[in-house]
């Protein structure tokens, strides 16, 4: 809302500078967003002047030569504007003045000397009008700096949603008056009423009294439609509205001034002179003043006549009964509509107007008469109108001023600010609240001082004590609030530990050299499907997988069972072309773009895209992670399941380095090592990696990580936590990556379920350790994990640790075989182990490996 200071001053005396005033209002909650200084760039060389003589320039069809009285002399100016005549007072830019980027000089043209320039409103920054020279008021003195006469400051406010009463110059003036202890001067509309009473000229029927609490109408006849006077047009321009014609301008002017939206109908175009306020019927249509035909819904409120809609109530009129050049009689509407209805209608139609934005914040029904009278007065004064006696006023349930009992002590109770009853009294009175002291005994409220506060009808936002506390605080000043420390009791520990856990993971991964990224939680189905080497209904299922929590090893497809329709799609022929839309995901009904149409099902696409972005400018490799949520859809109307996850990505060498180990491109075991260290840091000891198939990954370079928990029957049950692997070459190509990439996604909720609740210290054995090395040759296909598990199983309690320290293929190992060398450490907790015992164990292990894997000792 733009408020010209000169206009504001009509209603309240302002002694503060514009900056001080803006500060005062801002502190009280009326934030002044900008101060717009009109005329600040005019300088001393744009002055008022008068045209004393005008002649056509021979040989030109539009130029005139004028003699101009500058107040201190006479000069000649050539001008091309069509709207000037002898006697007009005009703004004159003298040589040296600057208009925008142009510096005025002395020019010679067609035999004349031009010593200046006459200016249009647009050239002066007074609005957008450039159709002619800005003709000044005839009373304007000559030779005066234009800045002294017309410069102004416009304060721009963002009006909060609850204060419809502030959407007007008078509303702002009321706050200024209260805050600066000055009286508010309201205009008093005065005019003569004559002719036939309005009640005989117009009939108003309000069918929907809930949505239209009040409808007031006046009739004004004999108006002359023309341009508005300069002062009014200038105020409209500065307030951000475009002058149209005198009648429409008056309705807009009064709306800006008092806050009551008005609508002027051409009385003679309202059929049967009968206004009917009703809800729209389904399928009804109206073409609004902006020329757009609009189909209406049955909950929208309309202004109609017996033959059909003439306006969308409180939003916009139509051409049917619009004021036009031939209009002489005005039916003036000044009504009150229910805020929620206006808002719903405006939102549904995508049509937000000055009028609708005021109604939806809530307006005072008592304002309609004042608004109608103020407009009638201006139509009488400026348009030569004759105001017919009376107002047709349909107002079945007049609002009553509410009052609440308020204890001044509530201010300190809620804010800690000590105030006296007198201060409260003054603060509220300044805002036009009526305050009466109520004897304490009468209300039996423990003898405390009580006030009965009557709320002005324009303050619909005030409902209870806390609202009045805020009003008092605004008046006394937020800067008076003391600053203290909360002294109440601390709550019991509550909530989960996910915040700490996520930071624990962050710190570990950062320590392992990974950079944290943070990508959008919104993505698109297509972006996620890019992760799959081959896209079909079956491979797409991995995006919906989550760890089974029923204790079975394996994954379940999130919500596939609940989604009967998509289940069929997913289960049917996996070979037919896959329609991305059939991938279940949390879909955004109003996305910003197709790229952000749903919530992510995986962190991996964000990681791959970030690898892609950064690899363009990064010669060193990339090591990234993200901690965030996957959003797995549940049944219709249910919130999705948000699963906390960590995604890891490696691509290329750890660093540009002269050290070969660091300069080596990352491989599968780098990623796995990071995951293993993470597990170690979390004290998760029971886990296993197994070869796995996943459509994102290289078929021979992908593992699933499972963590173990004690299950029933002393057994152990393993739950999958996530996949890790080398990105399939087809997927790598799709993201244009220069190196092989490695990805891992871990379900943090499953991972943390495996973190031991407490750590138990096991006493360190003081008995001697015996070390034996063991080198065996097995088939290439035998997984190392199986060999290691067999060694552990057969080594039993006395085998303390097993560590693999060499993996070898090539001569002299036969083709298709590999050699694995372990170092085994034997130790008893309670005694010194003999060599013979260790040797026996070692032999038992060798025998078992021979039996299970056909392993032979390496000679």
């Amino acid at each position: 809302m733009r408020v010209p200071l000169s206009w504001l001053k009509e209603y309240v005396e302002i002694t503060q500078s514009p900056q001080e005033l803006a500060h005062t209002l801002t502190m009280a909650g009326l934030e002044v967003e900008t101060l717009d200084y009109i005329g600040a760039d005019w300088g001393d060389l744009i002055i008022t002047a008068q045209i004393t003589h005008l002649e056509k320039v021979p040989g030109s069809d539009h130029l005139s030569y004028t003699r101009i009285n500058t107040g201190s002399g006479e000069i000649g100016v050539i001008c091309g504007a069509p709207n000037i005549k002898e006697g007009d007072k005009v703004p004159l830019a003298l040589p040296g003045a600057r208009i925008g980027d142009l510096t005025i000089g002395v020019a010679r043209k067609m035999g004349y000397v031009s010593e200046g320039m006459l200016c249009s409103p647009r050239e002066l920054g007074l609005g957008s009008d450039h159709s002619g020279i800005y003709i000044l008021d005839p009373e304007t003195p000559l030779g005066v700096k234009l800045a002294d006469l017309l410069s102004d400051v416009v304060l721009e406010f963002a009006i909060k949603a609850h204060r419809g009463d502030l959407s007007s110059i008078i509303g702002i003036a009321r706050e200024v008056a209260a805050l600066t202890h000055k009286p508010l001067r309201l205009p008093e509309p005065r005019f003569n009423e004559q002719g036939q009473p309005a009640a005989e000229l117009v009939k108003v029927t309000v069918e929907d009294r809930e949505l239209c609490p009040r409808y007031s109408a006046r009739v004004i006849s004999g108006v002359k439609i023309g341009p508005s006077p300069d002062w009014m047009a200038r105020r409209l321009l500065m307030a951000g509205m475009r002058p149209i014609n005198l009648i429409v301008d008056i309705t807009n002017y009064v709306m800006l001034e008092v806050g009551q939206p008005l609508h002027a109908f051409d009385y003679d175009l309202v059929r049967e002179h009968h206004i009917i306020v009703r809800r729209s019927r389904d399928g009804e249509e109206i073409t609004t003043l902006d020329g757009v035909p609009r189909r209406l819904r049955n909950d929208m409120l309309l202004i109609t006549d017996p033959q059909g809609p003439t306006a969308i109530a409180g939003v916009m009129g139509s051409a049917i009964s619009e004021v036009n050049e031939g209009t002489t009689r005005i039916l003036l509407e000044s009504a009150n509509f229910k805020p929620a209805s206006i808002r719903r209608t405006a939102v549904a139609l995508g049509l937000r107007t000055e009028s609708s934005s005021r109604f939806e914040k809530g307006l005072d029904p008592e304002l309609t008469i004042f608004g109608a009278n103020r407009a009638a007065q201006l139509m009488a004064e400026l348009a030569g109108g004759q105001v017919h006696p009376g107002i047709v006023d349909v107002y079945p349930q007049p609002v009553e001023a509410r009052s609440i009992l308020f204890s001044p002590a509530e201010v300190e109770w809620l804010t800690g600010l000590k105030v006296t009853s007198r201060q409260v009294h003054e603060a509220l009175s300044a805002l036009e609240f009526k305050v009466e002291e109520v004897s304490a005994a009468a209300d039996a409220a423990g003898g405390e001082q009580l006030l009965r506060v009557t709320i002005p009808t324009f303050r619909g936002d005030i409902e209870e004590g806390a609202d009045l506390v805020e009003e008092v605080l605004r008046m006394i000043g937020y800067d008076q609030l003391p600053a203290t420390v909360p002294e109440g009791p601390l709550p019991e520990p509550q909530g989960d530990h996910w915040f700490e856990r996520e930071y624990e993971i962050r710190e570990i991964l950062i320590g392992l050299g990974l950079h944290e990224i943070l990508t959008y939680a919104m993505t698109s189905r297509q972006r996620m499907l890019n992760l799959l080497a081959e896209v079909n209904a079956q491979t797409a299922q991995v995006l919906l997988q989550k760890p089974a929590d029923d204790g079975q090893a394996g994954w379940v497809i999130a919500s596939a069972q609940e989604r009967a329709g998509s289940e069929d799609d997913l289960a049917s022929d996996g070979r037919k072309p896959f329609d991305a839309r059939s991938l279940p995901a949390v879909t955004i009904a109003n996305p910003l773009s197709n790229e952000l149409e749903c919530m992510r099902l995986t962190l991996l696409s964000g990681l791959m895209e970030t690898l892609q972005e950064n690899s363009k400018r990064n010669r060193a490799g990339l090591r990234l992670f993200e901690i965030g949520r996957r959003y797995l859809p549940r049944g219709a109307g249910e919130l999705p399941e948000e699963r906390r996850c960590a995604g890891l990505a490696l691509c290329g060498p750890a660093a540009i380095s002269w050290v070969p180990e660091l300069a080596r491109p990352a491989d599968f075991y780098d990623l796995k090592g990071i995951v293993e260290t993470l597990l170690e840091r979390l004290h998760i000891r029971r886990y296993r990696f197994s070869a796995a198939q996943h459509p994102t990954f290289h078929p021979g370079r992908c593992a699933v990580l499972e963590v173990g928990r004690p299950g029933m029957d002393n057994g152990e049950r393993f739950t999958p936590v996530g996949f890790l692997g080398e990105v399939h070459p087809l997927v790598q190509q799709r993201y244009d990556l220069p190196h092989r990439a490695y990805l891992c996604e871990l379900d943090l909720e499953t991972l943390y379920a495996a973190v031991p609740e407490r750590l138990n210290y096991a006493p360190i054995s003081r008995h001697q350790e015996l070390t034996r090395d063991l080198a065996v040759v097995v088939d290439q296909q035998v997984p190392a994990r199986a060999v290691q598990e067999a060694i552990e199983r057969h080594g039993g309690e006395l085998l303390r640790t097993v560590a693999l320290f060499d993996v070898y293929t090539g001569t002299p190992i036969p083709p298709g075989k590999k050699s694995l060398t372990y170092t085994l450490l034997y130790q008893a907790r309670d005694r010194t182990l003999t060599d013979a015992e260790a040797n026996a164990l070692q032999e038992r292990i060798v025998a078992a490996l021979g039996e299970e894997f056909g392993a032979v000792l390496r000679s």
Partner: protein
Amino acid sequence: MIEQLDALLAQLDALQERALRELEAINSLAELEDWDVRYLGRHRGELKNFSTLIPKLGKAERPVIGQKINAVKEKLESALEARRQELRDRELREALERERLDVTLPGRALPAGHMHPISRTILEVARIFTRMGFQVVQGPEVETDYYNFQALNIPVDHPARDMQDTFWVVPGEILLRTQTSPMQIRVMQATRPPVRVIVPGKVFRHEAIDASHEAMFHQIEGLLVDERCTMADLKGSLARFAREMFGEDRRVRFRGSYFPFTEPSAEVDIDCILCKGSGCRLCKYSGWLEILGSGMVHPRVLREVGYDPRKYRGYAFGMGVERIAMLKYAIGEIRLFSGNDLRFLRQF
């Protein structure tokens, strides 16, 4: 015999002189061992050869020549030992010299990762408030209209919804939360006062993305409810936060505002961290920077969760993490946070 004796003594002197001269020229421990064998060798050493002559000498001459041999032997042995030590020292010196490293070559640094500035800022804010007895909780990012709006005194068709353009999942029912405030309701429904929580998390607004607007960003909500807290406590808590976050001499300013779920409401500014209040481009020449919105929990919100507003009071605040991080680290563009450019991330 005398002549023979003199000749022998002269030969021994010559031997000593020759041996010492040769020793002087020796440059390696191997040559030194040859020399040792040649002159002092137990079997064929030259000095040994003289010893074998002794029995052939007369009784009086034997001790003279024996003493002389011993003297020469001692002389040569000590010279040998000195020379050996000298050579060993030199060889060690040379070996060490050969092992000299270029200590200016870069070390084998383990790669170091970096925390995202948003995570870092959230952590810093959380630490400040946990020191004041707050606990950190989180909530769902996909929310219901009830928690995000209605329970917070923003009914359907309330114009305050304009302040927060919404991404809808099921229009009118399910949405991407536009603020972390819905957790106020969830927390209060789940517990009884006293309540002290902060809620960091992602929020979403349907806004065109530009240098200062993001469709996804982060907020931290704070909520304190008990039987004694006041707006002055809110001011004191936030002043302490501002000082810890932005520097000991920071001042805070409260000014009136409007949020549907607080009453009274206040916007909180700090004096400009760049110009200290004298006015600059960062603070748009006002001397103040807006950092968060706050207020006393609206009685309607308290009633909604079954708290008696005559008994309980509470304060709430909400800050934009990106805004705080931009001020703290002098970052000019909000899009950098979701851009994930490593050149940006490595600086934190």
